């Protein structure tokens, strides 16, 4: 794997938002899920998004993922203004630039683990033989190769999340967006997943934006914490204990 390409350009901006807003109109009232957030995330950085429930973390992540369009303001990823992209281009962006991991795994129950993992490759129209090798390789990396023929329902929560991680990474995205990836897991399996994510961040130089409401987790793994409240950015903290990306490859 290429382990150095991303980590060199730490100062390069991967994601920048400018006064981004996402308002939901529910009849008379307007819910300001994201309300004027401006932030900058460098390439290769590991950022944690923190905030209480309903503070707009998921809404912001969806905007970064190109799953949702902002009501106003801009999201610029690797120099591309997402709001200017067509639906087709956004799909391409989601397929190739970002990888998503969800709290609830979101694996497709009717497919085997391997099929779930290779699904993005089908959309990318990768040849079948190459797809199989890539999927097995990705499962190998998350330690699930032996279970590739199982259905998601036959796996434990931790295993399902590892499969979801393998799927998110199969197209080698530069950015990993994770929405509470350990939320449904006990602390031991949660640590397992977090170690994997850190591995990708440090070895592949992948930019990671992780939503969590566990401050402990954020302090342990992230380099920077961004605090949201009522859709607004309220605080930012550099985590002192965390090493600079790429410098520490050893796991605790």
């Amino acid at each position, binding site marked *: 794997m290429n382990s150095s390409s991303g980590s060199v350009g730490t100062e390069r901006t991967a994601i920048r938002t400018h006064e981004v807003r996402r308002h939901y109109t529910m009849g008379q009232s307007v819910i300001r899920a994201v309300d004027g957030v401006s932030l900058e995330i460098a390439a290769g950085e590991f950022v944690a998004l923190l905030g209480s429930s309903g503070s707009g973390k998921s809404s912001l992540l*969806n905007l970064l993922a190109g*799953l949702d369009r902002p009501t106003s303001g801009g999201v610029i990823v690797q120099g591309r203004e997402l709001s200017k992209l067509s639906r087709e281009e956004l799909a391409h962006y989601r*397929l190739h630039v970002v990888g998503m991991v969800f709290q609830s795994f979101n694996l497709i129950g*009717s497919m085997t683990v391997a099929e779930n993992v290779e699904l*993005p490759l089908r*959309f990318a129209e990768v040849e079948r033989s190459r797809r199989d090798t890539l999927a097995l390789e990705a499962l190998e990396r998350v330690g699930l190769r032996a279970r590739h023929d199982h259905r998601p329902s036959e796996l434990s929560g931790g295993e399902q999340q590892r499969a979801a991680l393998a799927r*998110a990474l199969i*197209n080698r995205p530069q950015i990993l967006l994770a929405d509470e990836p350990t939320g449904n897991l006990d602390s031991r399996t949660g640590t397992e997943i977090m170690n994997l994510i850190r591995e990708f961040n440090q070895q592949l130089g992948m930019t990671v934006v992780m939503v969590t409401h566990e401050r402990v987790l954020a302090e342990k793994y992230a380099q920077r914490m961004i605090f949201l409240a009522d859709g607004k950015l309220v605080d930012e903290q550099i985590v002192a204990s965390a090493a600079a990306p790429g410098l520490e490859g050893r796991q605790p």
Partner: protein
Amino acid sequence: MKLPDLTELALRNLRESVLRNSLTTIGISVGVASLVAMLSLGIGLQQLASRHLEKSGLFDTVIVTSRRDLRHNGREQNNSEPAPSESPTLDEAARAKMEHLPNVLEAYPDIRFITELRFEDKPHLTMVSALPESMKNNDAFEGMAGQFFTSTNADEAILQKSFAAELMGKDSKRGIDQYKAADFSSLLGKQITMRYAQRQAGAPVPETQDEKDVDELMDVPATAYSVVSREQKLTIVGIADLDPESMRGPTRGKVFLPLGLAESLHVMQPTDLRAIASSSSNQPTYSSISVRVKDPKQVESVENAIKKMGFNAFSILDATRSLRQFFAVLDLFLGIFGSLALAVASIGIVNTLVMAILERRREIGIMKAIGASDGDVRKLFFAEAGAMGILGGIAGVALGWTIGHVINFGTNIYLKRQALPPEHFWAVPWWLVGAAVAFAFVVSLVSGLYPAGRAARLDPVQALRYE
């Protein structure tokens, strides 16, 4: 996404809710089956009708008559065509010319007359007609007893079953179909004597009456020929197993002679009166000529060529044109009724796919979140609709085919009880099989249009929130 992937995913999704999708597919197949059954019936009936007509040997035949004979029908004639008096005579030269027209197999004169035949000293008045040697291969002589004429000049006769029955004193009124030609094979090799009137060229007598009177009086004018009574012995060589009631052109007679023999006898024919009266030469003229065409498709062009020569031409195509129109309308109606069931089935597809979207909302959201484009989702639903269409189409054709054969089988049992011959009125041509499957495919794609569009437009964030 590529087609093999789409197909694979679509079939997998269909298997996931196998009961609902099977029911929908069965709905399509019932629709296709009803369409196939209806159209097969229409096509089968049409083929049955044309089979009966084709057997008559008239399908590839143009009957040519002289315009002079039809002078009294002048009002029906097109004014642009040559006036009857300028029309050429239907003689040997004209026959040879017709035989050399493109796509013509042969042109032979129709010789047909009513005369007396004596068998075992009993007279029988009947219609005699001449057959060219080419008739040997005609379907009309299928299942005959004995054999065809040994040569075109042989002193031989072939009898029709009903006339054979008459000769043997059997009651032919009560259903001749209960007899087989072979039942009369005892007649084969026996002699029969034909008495006939022979016309002979005589000294020309100055014509006193005008032509018009001749036509109207239908009288033998005291002119160019005399009539002599003759006898001819014939050996019975064959009994034809024909239905005497059906229209069969040259085979309409009850006793058949070889053409060469018939020509050499110079038998007086009813139409000779007018022909001779207006003819300036002593050359025999024909009342009508049958022109056989290589292929029924070329009948029309040959017919037109003959009309250009100045003769009247008639073919069974003219008579069947309205019949074919009738079948076209019948097929259309049967097709519409058949399609109605398919239309109902297509609503089933819409329903199933809309249900599937509701059920698989989350799955669609996941696919979009990991990079599926609107087009990918749309194509996936189209593929599911199309797969149901093709599967339903194939099952439907099989079902329709089975239904048709069961009905045909049942009808034939009924026909057998009524002592009628079995009929094959059911036909599923290959093009119908292909067209029915293709039609089911297209109908299901059209039905998938709305659900696929709806699935494609689904907002991924909303879809993922849906539990």
